[in-house]
């Protein structure tokens, strides 16, 4: 037998898949389960995915969701202050305006968000 023949035979053996008997696999799996460490109580690692979908969603809501909620609150507050012109803000804003120029009227200062009418008329 030449080395080429032997190499071919060995390659054939390499390509031949070993098929374990089902009862052998069952025995090995039984061993695996019997020897497997049991997760501690409250340990959430038992699921193969690591984190469950519920935990993932909870984390998303608690993290990104919380940040999104804060941003939305700030935005709404800004809009509210602009349009409602709370009386409580009128006095401090007027005093600041007065400090920069006595000629400025209070009515001009409290225009925190200019009306869109002017922009539309220009454009």
């Amino acid at each position, binding site marked *: 037998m030449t080395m080429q023949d032997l190499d071919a*035979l060995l390659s054939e053996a390499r390509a031949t898949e070993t098929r374990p008997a089902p009862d*052998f696999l069952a025995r090995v799996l039984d061993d*695996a389960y019997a*020897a497997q460490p*049991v997760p501690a109580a409250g340990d959430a*690692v038992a699921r193969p995915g690591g984190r469950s979908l519920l935990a993932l969603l909870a984390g998303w809501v608690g993290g990104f969701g919380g940040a999104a909620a804060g941003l939305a609150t700030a935005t709404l507050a800004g809009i509210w202050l602009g349009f409602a012109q709370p009386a409580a803000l009128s006095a401090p804003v007027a005093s600041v305006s007065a400090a920069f120029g006595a000629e400025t009227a209070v009515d001009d200062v409290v225009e925190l968000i200019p009306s869109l009418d002017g922009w539309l008329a220009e454009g």
Partner: protein
Amino acid sequence: MPLDDLSDLGDEVLLARYAQGDRMAARALVLRLSPRVLGYAARLLGDRAEAEDVAQEAMMRLWRIAPDWRSGEAQVTTWLYRVVTNLVTDRQRARRRRATNGLDEAPEVPDGSPGVVARLIEADRMAALDAALVQLPDRQRQAVVLRHIEGLSNPEIASVMEIGVEAVESLTARGKRALAALLSGQKAALGYEDEGAEA
């Protein structure tokens, strides 16, 4: 998570999940590693039942070491090959001690007489190869099987057999020559054309 989703995970990752109590990881490891371990043990021992015992024991050692497995130090498969090699070596030594006929160690290079090979060679090419393999000296057989059937690199074999790479190369070369000698004259039974007949 379906078992298929675990197929992309490495052996070490699966072993870590196994150690954390993941039963799907246990199944995936059994299905992935058991055939290789069993196949290697069977090639070394030439006895399927005995190979199953060795493979089961090797896998048991993997389960036991899983919680203490140190990632990155060795591949899981290389570690398993080493365990199987040692288990087989122990069995073969015990087998020889039990032998009452006082046979010496197998010769470094077999004389090429077919013996049992001749009977099996007509039945099945793989059976013939296995029968020839078991006639090799233990270390040569381990090196040849790991290199040419299991497909390990020489450095990996060196790690499994706990020897140097040069020793692996020497064992593999001598093992192949001995194997060719054992199978010589059996070309027709193996399905190869007789070069002499063609001339």
